């Protein structure tokens, strides 16, 4: 009788509704747009292939404005409508707010890019899963630096003052302190980071500060428009001229903005389409380009695909959409995604996946003004931190 999707998957052809709560307006909308498109493409592909246990997937989108209060509001609304399976968050602050909410309201959320380590440590909630890169990507990025630039041992950061910024810095430092001694035998020197406000139009004072530090390597945690502004205003000051620049998560955002003016730098990515040649990645990429016309999708689209794939696999496995069953099914689940197969660690709901980094440099010959000149993939198992759900992650601190 009732079309409640939580009951009996095999008995009806009603679509299974998944909630996508992601920024559809505000400063992070452009990231949310990748999540949105990625999710739609992934669901189309599954539905074309016959759905999950014969039932199609349907998406219900809500705008969370990258604002935890707005996010919990719409998430609750979806829960009220009976949509208990949700995904799409990219912001740490929002993901952290979901734990208690999903627990209280009996829902599940898969985050698609939030970086805070607290999600699977001190703020661990059985109802929130990170199906993509966790915290340990910064450790992988530090390790790669130690391998590629053993001489660059003094580091500072451009760190926006929020949860994600602080996380990036803390974990990157942890990685530097572990891998430089291990790989190069040298002790890295950690210079106090430059804390910058976000949403500001003028970074010149911070740029001058940064230019004065002795550090030879800089890790950047600003993102989006802020990062583009920062990079642009930094150019005349020559901030990046003879420093190594490791960007945490901007993928092509800064490069798209600055084009041929982009400084040569490394950046982490959730999924670099050109380097992933698996059929899953290829089909997804083609469908994505066909739908959006964008030839260079960014990794968040891949994270959305992974989230859809995780739900599809879990539902297929248990045959139910009940919260409890899905949580059980997700724990320890191994599923196939655009970046290859991932396994969700049962203890702390953190997926173990391979980490990808790309190097970007300006290229006047290319029609986008830049090119990807290097690519590195590091297996996640080697850098992931131990699972300590409910307890803070133990980090190395500079002495």
């Amino acid at each position, binding site marked *: 009788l009732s079309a409640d999707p939580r009951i009996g998957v095999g008995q009806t052809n009603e679509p299974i509704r998944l909630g996508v709560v992601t920024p559809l307006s505000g400063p992070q909308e452009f990231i949310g747009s990748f999540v949105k498109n990625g999710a739609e493409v992934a669901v189309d592909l599954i539905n074309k292939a016959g759905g999950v246990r014969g039932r199609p997937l349907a998406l219900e989108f809500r705008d969370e404005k990258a604002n935890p209060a707005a996010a919990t509001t719409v998430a609750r609304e979806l829960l009220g409508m009976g949509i208990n399976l949700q995904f799409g968050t990219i912001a740490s602050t929002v993901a952290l707010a979901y734990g208690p909410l999903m627990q209280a309201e009996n829902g599940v959320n898969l985050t698609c890019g939030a970086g805070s380590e607290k999600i699977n440590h001190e703020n661990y909630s059985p109802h929130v899963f990170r199906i993509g890169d966790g915290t340990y990507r910064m450790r992988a990025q530090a390790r790669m630096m130690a391998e590629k630039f053993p001489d660059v041992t003094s580091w500072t950061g451009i760190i926006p003052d929020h*949860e994600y910024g602080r996380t990036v810095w803390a974990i990157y430092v942890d990685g530097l302190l572990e891998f430089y001694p291990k790989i190069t035998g040298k002790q890295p020197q950690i210079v106090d980071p430059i804390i910058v406000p976000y949403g500001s139009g003028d970074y010149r004072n911070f740029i001058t500060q940064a230019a004065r530090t002795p550090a030879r390597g800089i890790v950047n945690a600003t993102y989006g428009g802020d990062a583009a502004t920062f990079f642009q205003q930094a150019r005349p000051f020559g901030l990046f001229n003879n420093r190594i620049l490791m960007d945490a998560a901007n993928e092509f955002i800064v490069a798209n903005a600055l084009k041929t003016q982009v400084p040569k730098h490394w950046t982490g990515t959730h999924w670099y389409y050109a380097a992933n040649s698996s059929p899953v990645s290829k089909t997804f990429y083609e469908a994505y380009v066909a739908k959006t016309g964008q030839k260079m999708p960014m990794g968040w689209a891949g994270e959305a695909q992974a989230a859809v794939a995780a739900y599809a696999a879990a539902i297929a496995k248990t045959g139910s959409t009940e919260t409890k069953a899905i949580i059980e099914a997700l724990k320890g689940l191994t599923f196939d995604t655009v970046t290859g197969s991932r396994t969700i660690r049962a203890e702390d709901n953190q997926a173990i996946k391979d980490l990808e980094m790309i190097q970007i440099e300006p290229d006047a010959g290319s029609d986008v003004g830049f090119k990807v000149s290097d690519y590195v993939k590091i297996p996640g198992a080697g850098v992931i931190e131990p699972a300590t759900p409910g307890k803070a992650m133990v980090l190395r601190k500079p002495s």
Partner: protein
Amino acid sequence: MTRSPALRFLLVLGLLTGAALLLPLVANRGIVFLAGVVAINVVLGLAFNLLFSTAGLLSFGQATFSAAGAYAVALLLLRVPEIPFLVALGAAAATGAAIATAIGLVALRRTEGVYFAVLTLAFAELVHVVIAKTSFFGRNDGLTGIPRPRIGPIDLADGQAYYVFVILVTALLIACLWWVTHSRLGRSFRAIRLDPMRAAFLGIDVRRRRLEAFAVSGACAAAAGGLMGPLTSIVSPDLAHWGESTKPILFTLLGGAGHFWGPLVGAVVFSGVEYATRSLAGASDLITGGLLLAVVLAIPGGLLGLAALVVRRLRRRERPATVTDAAAEGARP
């Protein structure tokens, strides 16, 4: 047909509260949850309108008060879990009143009009930055995991209990605001709005009255804001952002500033539009902006203003039919 304004008000309030309490029977929990948010917004709008239409003060910093209330309740519930919830709400109202008084003491000293508005905006942003940068307030990330409290034997986490509680408290706050608006105090507020100089020369202490209006509005907004935390289980600095301060203004003008119920109509309609366009995100700015512009241009008196106009027009058209009445009345000695 009741004549007394107080009875008429209670009737309307009773009907609205009743309708809100019946909502869970017909709507799903998502809608009911949103209705709780709307109820809080209604109080924020009415508290703004007390300042704007009654006391003649344009405040751009109302978010400060609602955020202060929200943080007060959140901090109390998180750090002093055994505190009775009503006491926490009372503390929220007191915080709002205290902050309003502090800001008012400074801002009302000399400024008026747009300057006052921008000064309240500046203070609001100040509060916003301080909240967003102080660990005690959870910085930019806010405070999460705010529990739904108990009131004596009633666990507000049960089913729709908290929603019912929100509706009852907002009804009470609305009644308070109505009382202030229509009492002797409200009359002196209005006098000050119409002509502060004249009011002063009737012996009214203009600055003190304005401060009182500011404090009352701040207290009500804070009490309403205090309901927010346990409802959404999170408070974040965005609550204090200037964009939040524009909302009560929008509700008020959309609904009709000249009417007590204007902000309610505005909040409900605005939320309805937001809800209807929620999945059209991207175009949502265009739609909200366009709609608002259309309303302001087409009916500057707000929706209730339009309604009143229509009623008046209809009445006038009916008048010929009542000529005999008028004549009869005129004939009376």
